[in-house]
Structure formats: C-alpha cells, structure tokens
C-alpha cells in the first residue's frame, strides 16, 4: 500500500510536467492546426530562463583576497555578486536563493515574445502545408534552438536549486498513519504539482469565462464562421500560441530544480508529451491534462522493483504500450472529438 501511494506521489510531478506541455501542444493544435514539434524546446528554454536568472543574479565582480591563493599560486580572486554589494549580503543572498520563482516573472514575457516570433516568423507560413511539412519545420526549429542553447550554456546539466526553504522532504506517510520514513515526498515536487494545478486551472478559466476565451473556443470549433462574423481570429490564435509557449516556459522554469537543465531535456519530454496528446485525444484540453497525469503515474508504477522484476524493461515501454492499447480500443483517444485530424 505504502509503495503504491509513494509511486502515485512520484507520478504527480512528472505527470504535471507532461500535462502542462501537452496542454500547450493541444492548444496550438486546436487553434492553429499545427503539430508543433518545437514545443519541447520551449519547455527547455523555460528551464534555461531559470538558469539565466540564477546567473544574472549571481553576476559578480572580482575582489582579490590576499590571504588565499588560486590553483596557479596567484592571490585568489573572490567573486562577490553585485546584488550582494548593492542590497547587502542578506537581501542579496535571499534574491539569489529565490532565483527560480523570480524567473517566472521574466519567463512569462520572454516566452510570449518567443512564441509570437516563432508563430509570425516561421510557423504561419506552414498553415496551408501538409502536417508532415509542419512536423519537419518545427522539428528542425527545435534542433536549432537546442544547439543554440548548447552553444551558450554548454552540454553539461546546470544545477538550478530551489530556494532553501523548499529543500528536503516531508513525511507524508507519518501524516496518514504509516511508519516514519516510509512515504517521503520532496517539498519542491509538491510545489510543482500545486503550481501545475494552478496554471491548468487558470488556462481553463481563461478559455471558459472570458470573451477572448469564448471567441477562441468558437474559432477552434468553426474557424470559418467566426471569421465571417468579422472577428480577426488569426490574431487571437497568435496570442494563444504565445500563451501556450508561456505555459511550456513556466513549466520548464519550475522543473529546473527537479531536473538540472540540459540542452536536450526538451526532446526527452516532447515525445512523451505527444503520446500524452494522442492518448488524451487530439484537440481535447481536458484529455491532455488527464492523460498527462495518468501516464506520469503509470510510468512511476512501472519503475517499481516489484513490477520490473516481473517484466524487465517495462519502465521504458509502459507509456507506448498503454498508448497502443488505448488507440486500439478508443481510436480517438480518451476524450477525442470526432472529425479532428480525420479529414
């Protein structure tokens, strides 16, 4: 029992990331009809916004400390961060400590702009082309983006810690009556899950309760009619692309403390997120979210020693296995609508 609860908890944070990426993918597919293979790269760029924030706050000037020497025997140059000399050591250190949450503030405008530029600059030229062309061009874009990141940040993962207040784990098992240390869960992963729930809720509320959202939903259902009503649906869809990029970006920012950002993390998540979208049903937002959590938790279960000893290697294929079963039994996915990608 305790092992099951443990793996459900473990699946939640991974599932949150899948759900957030799949949500953005579905938004873009539902509005613009584009299969965006560069979406994982947006998640990765988000994580690197956190890295950049950490580096910017850590920008330092050199002070020579005569009492110590460096590896060549010269007096040691000690790096003093500017923020510590401007705001005092305490406030400065706190700012650096909180660089990941602070990065969210920057990630939203940055990702919106990147989203607009991507859509207006490249992807809009491919709306009338076949899906295969769209996949090729967005896949190419993803490779370009990840090589750019590698050029500036190197290939090694970059440690991006959460604020000290969230380091460590709490004993969930003890709270619900298990022995101590049986079910532990890191604080930051709980924060990530709550954050994902908040973002998903906000996106749904935006689409459900605002006029803008209503128009977008109408456009997703019948683009031509909405256009005939004199509404500039293209512009709204561009904004939705920006929002989808921002969702992927902030998902990446918050994931940075869980998985040290590296340039290829986007690709790792992209493939799985696509499976999530397909399992959830192409074009279905609730489907994407539900499938994200479902597959995240299933993957966690498959990593259990007990399961792996029964079926070796199952942790690597479980997601695809489930996808095959679901597509065989429900060809439109869990919550797919008729007529999507079926013309």
């Amino acid at each position, binding site marked *: 029992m*305790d*092992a099951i609860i*443990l*793996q459900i*908890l*473990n699946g939640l*944070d*991974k599932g949150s990331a899948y759900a957030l990426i799949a949500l953005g993918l579905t938004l873009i597919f539902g509005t613009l009809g584009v299969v965006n293979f560069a979406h994982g790269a947006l998640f990765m760029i988000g994580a690197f916004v956190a890295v950049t924030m950490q580096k910017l706050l850590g920008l330092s000037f050199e002070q020579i400390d005569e009492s*110590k020497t*460096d*590896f*060549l025997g010269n007096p*040691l140059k*000690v790096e003093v961060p500017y923020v510590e000399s401007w705001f005092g050591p305490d406030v400065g250190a706190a700012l650096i400590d909180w660089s990941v949450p602070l990065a969210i503030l920057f990630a939203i405008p940055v990702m919106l702009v990147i989203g607009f530029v991507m859509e207006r600059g490249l992807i809009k030229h491919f709306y009338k082309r076949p899906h295969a062309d769209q996949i090729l061009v967005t896949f190419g874009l993803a490779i370009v983006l990840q090589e750019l990141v*590698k050029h500036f940040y*190197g*290939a*090694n*993962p*970059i*440690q991006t*810690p*959460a604020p000290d207040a969230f*380091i*460590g*784990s709490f004993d969930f098992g003890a709270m619900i009556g298990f022995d101590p*240390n*049986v079910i*532990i869960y*890191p604080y*930051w*992963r709980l924060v990530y899950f709550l954050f994902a729930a908040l973002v998903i809720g906000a996106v749904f509320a935006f689409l459900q309760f605002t006029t803008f959202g209503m128009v977008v939903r109408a456009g997703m259902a019948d683009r031509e009619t909405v256009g005939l009503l004199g509404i500039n649906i293209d512009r709204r869809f561009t904004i939705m692309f920006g929002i989808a990029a921002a969702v992927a970006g902030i998902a990446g920012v918050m994931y940075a*403390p*869980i*998985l*040290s950002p*590296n340039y*290829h*993390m986007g690709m*790792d998540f992209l493939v799985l997120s696509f499976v999530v979208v397909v399992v959830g049903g192409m074009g279905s937002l609730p489907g994407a979210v539900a499938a994200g959590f479902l597959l995240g938790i299933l*993957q*966690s279960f498959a*990593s*259990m*020693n007990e399961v*792996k000893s029964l079926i070796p290697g199952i*942790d*690597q294929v479980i997601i695809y296995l489930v996808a095959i079963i679901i597509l065989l039994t429900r060809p439109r996915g869990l919550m797919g609508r008729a007529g999507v990608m079926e013309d």
Partner: protein
Amino acid sequence: MSKTNITRRGLMKTGAATGAGLALPTIFTSGAAAFTNEPTGSTVTLGFNVPQTGPYADEGIDELRAQQLAVEHLNGEGDGGMLNTFSSKVLDGTGILGKKVEYVTGDTQTKSDAARASAKSMIEKDGVVMINGGSSSGVAVAVQGLCQEAGIIFMAGLTHSNDTTGKDRKANGFRHFFNAYMSGAALAPVLKNAYGTDRRAYHLTADYTWGWTQQESIQASTEAIGWETVNNVMTPVGAGDFSSYIAPVLNSGADVLVLNHYGGDMINSLTQAVQFGLRDKQVNGKQFEIVVPLYSELMANGAGENIKGVYGSMNWNWQLQDEGTKAFVKSFGEKYGRPPSNSAQTCYAQTILYADAVTRAGSFEPCAVAAALEGFEFDGLGNGPTLYRAEDHQCFKDVLVMKGAENPTTEYDTLEIVEITPVDQVTYAPDHAMFGGAEASLGACNNGA
C-alpha cells in the same frame, strides 16, 4: 599460333574479382606499406576521437585541450609541461622520430556507432597512426575493437569499465585510466573508517557495461568489509528523473545509497536523492550516507552543494603536489585559464606515452610500439610510479579517494583528496574473475596493411 581462351563467363569472373578487390577498403589491402598508415613524409598524424557533441561534449572539449597541449609539447612549443618531469627522456621536442606531429579530431557523440565511424574515417581518410580519447566505456570497447582490426594503436581516454582491459582487452589497445575494480578496492577501506562495517547498501546502477562492472566491483569490495547489499536496481541511461528509483530506498532498510551513475545521470540522481532528504535521515540508528564511486570535476560542478561530504574516487586530480602534476597544471592553466580535469590528464599522458613508446621502439609499427609499452615502468606524469602491465595493457598506479569539499573557494576545488591509495592495494591478477577470468586474452597484435 597461340589461342587465348577468353570466355564470357571467365571474363566476368575475373572482372568481378578485380572489382571486389578494388572496392575493399585500402586499409586492408595496401600491400606497399609495412603497416597501416606508415608515415612516409615529414609529419605524422594522430587521431583524437572525443565527444564534441552530445551530453559529454564539455568533457570531450577538455580532453581536446589536453591533446592539443600534448602535441605542442611534442613539437617543442610551449613550456614542455610534463615532458620535463617524465622519467623517460627520449622525447626532445622535435616531434616523434623527427616527424612533426599533426592531429585530426573526430566526434564520438558518446555513441558507439558514431565513434566507430569517426575513428574509421580518421584511419582511412586522414591516415592516423594512433587514436586517443573518449569518455565512455561503451565507446572505448567499440573503438578498441575497430583499431585492433585496422592495425592501429588505441590509447583509451576516460573509460572505467573493467571490460576495457578485462574480457574485451585487445593487443592494440592500452588504458592509462583506472577501472571499476580499483575504485572499489580504494574506496572500501575509507568507507569502513568513515561509516563502519555494519552498513546496508542500496545500489542504483546505470544499465550498460560500465555500470555493471562498477556495481559488481563496489559490491564485492564493500561486502568484503562486512557491508550487506540490500538491493541493486538498474536504471536506464539518461533517465533524467530518478525519483521512482530513489523513493523506495529509505523504506528498504538500507542506510547507504551507492550511485553507480556517471555524468548527467549522476548529477540528476544525486540532486534528487538530496531533494528527497535522504542525507538528513537516520536509518538503523545511523546517519544515511550516499557514495558515488566514480567522480569527475564536471560532475562535481554540476552537482553543486549536494556533493559536500560524499565519497568517490578519481584517476588523478590537479590538487596533487607531485612535480608532474604541478608542471601540467601550470602549463594547462596558463594556456586555458582553468585547471585540467582527470580525463584531460589521462589523454595528455596517453599521447605522451605513445610518442615515447614509438621513439623507444624506433618505429611507428604498431606491434613494435605495443612491445615498447608492455611492461613499461615510468613516473613523472602525475600519478606517481606507474606500470603498463603487459598481460592486459592496464596501467597500475595509485588511486585517489575523493570527498566533496565542505567549503570550496572556487568552482575548481569542489572535491578534496581524502587519501592516495597505494597501487599495491588496487592491484589484481590479470586473470581475475571480474576481468574475464582465464579465457580473457589480448589476442595477437595487428600491424594491419
């Protein structure tokens, strides 16, 4: 009048045979040379096969820095580095056997097939006589096999699996880097002093040749000091999120977690283990501990704060105080503004050792070079007195036990040397069971051509 009997069928047979002969790669057929890629001009070309793209690119770039430095020193440029401290004095800064040293580079991408392709290209197109570099045992075993077939000397870079000089050892392949067995043998006494003999270990292991031999070695050496092995779980390479594997550790009754991971995997698994609060826990009345058998500087940097107090092992570290190390760090540091990594040191040493062996043999002929390396004893390359053992082409030298520093002053001293384990303590028999047993054999050396 003689009659030549040319039939249509005969002509086609001859044509096909000739065609097939011409189509064979020249490395296997060039009969004129005595051995593959015999240098005939005033230069000789070395092939540096390192990861220039992919997850280990940073490590590969540091290897390349060291290899370029070694070429400079061989050609008499720069300050000479460890040539000044090397016990063998035949290298005089005029290249190798009077030929100026040039080099080409290949990109292994840390993938066996890509590494073989780039090595093959360097051998066939660029005419290299030796291949050096790499940062994975999977790659090293693959490239070593290729060099054996082609008749080229392979001077391995960073490869730590027992198999490289164990069951997969080759007559044309040589390893300066230490191995998994040596890590286990060096770490066990230190772990015994630090954590006692009554410990229960849980292993997470990268699922490929290096992980397997690393795990086997550290399990054997910790069980020899009385530890119990609770579980060993294989994790996929590049898993990213290890939480599903880490979460059950505390409840397993283990009080030590051994991470048989390298590079990015190790950074992630260690970071996540710390996030799960393992190191703050008390299990079986003892403080929970984490051990990382193989360290590298890049990993230590990547893991940041999490590495403090964690034990591991290394082939070499720039903080050593012998003359060779000091000369190398000065030379490397002044050129690149940073201390060299242990993979850089092994590639530098391997390049110098190859050049020295050629010079002592008086020939680039692979079998002559191999004979000069076999049983060669040397000093002054940063690791103290070292033997290139003839039976398996493995270097035997002291091993460093390291610990994450509590108060690093720069990004370069995140690890501190705990102990220099003497070579006798890490030496094993060439037919040791972990190294392929009695069946393991170098085979015959191959001159190619």
